[in-house]
Structure formats: C-alpha cells, structure tokens
C-alpha cells in the first residue's frame, strides 16, 4: 500500500503543547487583529449613528425626513412591547416562507421537466428569458387585480423568485459533469435513474444557490405586495408610517426588516457552507 495522501488533515500538526514562542506570538497577533476588527465594526456603527443623531438634532438634516436614532429606538421598544412588531414581523416572515416554498417546489419541478425534455426547454427558452429579464415589479399594479388582496402578496413573492429559481436549478442540472451521467449510463441506468441517482443529488449545491437567491427575492416580493395592499406586515408599517409621515416608525420597520433579511441570509449561508463541505 503505497499511495500518497493529499489531504493534509490526516497528518495532524504538532500537538498544541509544543507551541513555540513565535507561534504563541503569532496567535496573539491574530487575536489582536480579530479584536481590532470587532472594535472597528462597532466603531463604524457608532460613528454612523452618532453622525445621524447629531445632524438631525442640529437640524443640519431635517429630522422629519430622517428621524434620528434616539427616536427610532424608543419606537422600536414601544412597538416591540405592545407585541405589534413581533406580529408584523411574523406576518412578513410567514408570507416570505410560503412564497419561497411555493417557488422552490415549482422551480425545481419545472427545471426537472426542462432537463427531461430538451425539446420543451428549446421551445420555452425565449419565454423564460423574457420572463426572467422582465422586471416583475411592473406587474404590481395589475397583480393585485388578478390575484386579489389575499394572494397577491404570495403571488408577487413567487413571481419575483420563480424564474430565477428555474434558471439556477436548471443550470445546476446542466452543470452535472456529463461524465458522471456517462458513468451511470454505462452501468445501464435509465433516464429516470440518472435523474434519481446523479442529477438530483448532484444538484444540491445548485438548489442551495437557488434558495439563497430565492429567499431574498421572496422577501422583496412580500414587501412590495404589502406596500400594495395589506393590513399588517413590515411593508404595511413602512407604507403607512410614511403616509402619516412617522419616519420613526418607517425607520424602526426598516431596521427590523434589515435584521430579518440578514438573519435569513445568514441561515442560508450556513446551510450552503455545510453542503459545500459535503460536496467539496
């Protein structure tokens, strides 16, 4: 048995107790850099908030137009205490997840169909290109008309995210190394088996990539939908707040929205990392 292992992991580095002084110093330096980064991040945020506050307070910028941190924070706390904020956030989140789930399922199914039938793909290609390139937002004024107030929020979410999902997943299917398919074929696999054993499991990273785009787009769709017609949700808070010109409410809602989107994004990124590790 004389094969050379390329994976470095298997050959462990020196045990930790054998740390040389230079290494200890190097580690300390790394640690300092980490701290510095964290401090700088906090600093950037603090400077931003301070500048905002001061400019608004000294009326260099119109506080009515921008609100200011010390007004937004109590609003946030208030809204949170009354449970309003949790409710609105939950409604937006739920709609996003529903829109997301629908367009993922539809997207993967349609992508599979297109993969299965090259002819169908060819026929539908120009329509897909147009549907994908089209700013779906243009349908906002009439989407509502077609789907009604109940479903237009989901509809917008699906409309915005469906086509890109189809494209990304289909491209994932296409990107499967043809040699893997050839391998399965030489073993006698039918098209169905190729799909089941090679294409589907092999496209998990593409599906994750689609999820990553999709969830953000669904959220956009939901917000747009809520702008249009709603009785609750973060989009509703924003549009209503801006109509009665309560910029502190608008800002509070935007802050929560930013957090919601960042959390969803990070969750998917974590999933992506896990999968990428598996598919390395």
């Amino acid at each position, binding site marked *: 048995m004389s094969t050379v292992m390329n994976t470095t992991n298997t050959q462990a580095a020196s045990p930790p107790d054998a740390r040389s002084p230079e290494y200890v110093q190097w580690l300390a330096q790394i640690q300092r850099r980490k701290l510095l980064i964290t401090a700088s991040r906090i600093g950037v945020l603090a400077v931003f908030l301070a500048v905002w506050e001061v400019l608004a307070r000294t009326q260099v910028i119109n506080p009515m137009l921008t609100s200011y941190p010390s007004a937004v924070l109590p609003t946030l706390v208030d809204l949170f205490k009354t449970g309003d904020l949790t409710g609105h956030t939950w409604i937006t989140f739920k709609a996003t997840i529903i829109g997301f789930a629908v367009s993922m399922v539809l997207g993967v199914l349609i992508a599979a169909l297109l993969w299965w039938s090259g002819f169908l793909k060819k026929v539908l290609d120009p329509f897909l290109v147009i549907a994908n390139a089209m700013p779906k937002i243009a349908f906002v004024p009439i989407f509502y008309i077609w789907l009604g107030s109940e479903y237009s929020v989901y509809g917008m979410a699906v409309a915005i995210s469906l086509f890109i999902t189809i494209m990304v997943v289909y491209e994932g299917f296409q990107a499967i190394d043809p040699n893997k398919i050839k391998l399965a074929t030489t073993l006698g696999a039918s098209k169905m088996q190729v799909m089941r054993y090679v294409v589907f499991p092999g496209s998990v990273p593409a599906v994750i990539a689609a999820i990553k785009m999709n969830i953000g787009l669904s959220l956009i769709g939901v917000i747009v939908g809520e702008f249009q017609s709603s009785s609750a949700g973060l989009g509703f808070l924003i*549009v*209503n707040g801006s109509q009665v010109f309560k910029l502190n409410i608008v800002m509070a809602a935007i802050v929560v929205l930013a957090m919601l989107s960042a959390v969803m994004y990070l969750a998917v990124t974590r999933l992506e990392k896990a999968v990428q590790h598996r598919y390395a």
Partner: protein
Amino acid sequence: QTVHKVRYEEVVRSVLYVPMYAGLKKGIFKDEGIELTMKTSQGTDKGMAALLSGSADIVLIGPEASIYVANSESPVKPVVFAGLTATDGFLLMGRKPDPAFDWNKLKGSKIMSFRPGSNPDIFLEAALRKKGLDPKKDVKLVNNIGPAARTGAWLAGQNDYATFLEPEASTLEKEGKAFPLGSVGKEAGMVDYTVFTTTDTYLKKNRAAVQAWTQAVAKAQKYTAAAPAAELADLVGEYFTGVSKPELTSAIERYQTLNLWKKTPLVEKEAMDKLQDMLVQGGVLEASKKVDYARFVDMSLVQK
C-alpha cells in the same frame, strides 16, 4: 340573527374615515351581525380592482372609479350604496401662515397635487375653477409624485403650495412646516368623496349584508356627529400607530368644523352630477360618456 361575513377594504388609512373606525370600535357593525376583515388597498384603483376581481365584497373608495367602470366592458358593475365623507378632506397649505389668504394668490405658483384623474386632483381643479383660476394655465399643478412621497417632497422644499390630509396637516402645522390656508372640499362644494361600493352581483346575493352594513354606517355617522373629538381620538387611536393623541384630536376637530363627515349615508344625485361635471372639466371623462345616476348608485337601502 344571521352573521354576515364581509371582506372589506378601505382606500387608505386616514382620519377622514374616523366614523368607520368608530363604528368598528363601538361594536356597531358587530351588533348588525357583520363580521369583517379589513385591509388597506392603498388607492382607489386598487380598491376597485379588489372589488371587480372578487377579492373584496365592500370597498370604501372614490365614486369616480365606479363611473369609469360603468363605461367599461366590465361584466361586473360596481354599485355605490352608501356615502361616508361629505366632500374632499384635503387642506390647501402654504409655507407661511397667511390670515389674509386669497385663492387668487395662487396664480403662477406650483401646487403639489395628486395623479391626473385621481379624486384629490379632480377636486382641487374644481375648487380652483370655482375661484376663477384655470388649473391648466394660472397655476402649475404637480401631479407626478406618489402618495407616499408627497410629504417628503414638501419638506424637501419643492412646490409653493400643497394639499394635505389629516393627520399630516396637523403634524406639519405643529412643526411649522406648513400652514392651512383653505379647504379644498369647502370650495369644491359638497360632493361625496369616498363612498361604500359593492358589485351588482354581490348586492343581489347578499342584500341583507349590505343592508346591515348601511344601517351600521348610519349609526356610526350618528354617533360620530355627536361625539367630542377627544373621545373619538381615544376610541380610534389604535388605527393610527405612531400618531399621538393630541395630534389625532386636533385632526378630528378640524374635520368636524369642516363638516366633512356625512350625517346620513345618502349619496345625492346632484352631488354625483356635480362630480361628473368636474370629471368632464378635468378632461378625464368625455361629456358624452356621463353615466346615469341610477346606473352606479343604489340608494334603496339607505332609504329603508
């Protein structure tokens, strides 16, 4: 007593519709056997769309939409069955207080209005005409700013005059950013501004529900007419997230003094004729396309 389940949409969230919120909070609608879900459709066009597409049963929108649709190919026709506001609630506001304000001072100025063909714009034009001003020549009406962006545009220093609804009007006044100079509604005359609208098919099938609704509206109007502003403000406060009690109270007071809220749900023929004249003058309706009152208004339930 039978329960009527109604899907309701209001055009925007506004102090203009306080009688409706008061009715809801007072339990008047519930007492009439109505169980409703409410949404805000952000625009008369969207409210009408919700109605026509069947996703709403009753909507509170401007009557002009029903006139447009009566002229269209739509197989479903909207029916106005009760009124809520007596006229336009917009206030004309300027950058400085002016006790000696005269509408003629508007000549040559830029006024921030709403989209062409929309109710607020039609009413403003009518008011200007009444005051002897040609909306096309004597003033520059700015109507390309989306509803959500108007206050910002004003604060950013654009335009000389603007129209605002409550509670922004009170808020802006308090901040010293804008001062009320006149009421658009008062000048334009008593022409119903927002009305409860349903479809012919819904009315046919659910006459009892619409009847109950009309009665509830009437009761709510009666209650609102008698209630002091502070009491109303307390009652409907929860519909106005972020608006303080004093702001809300002053806004309600203003509308009370302007007699904005109808005392009964009756929408009169004269008012609708006047509206159609305004639409024709505004260039959004052809004179030949005026619609018969009976074709889009049904006051039979109010009369009961």
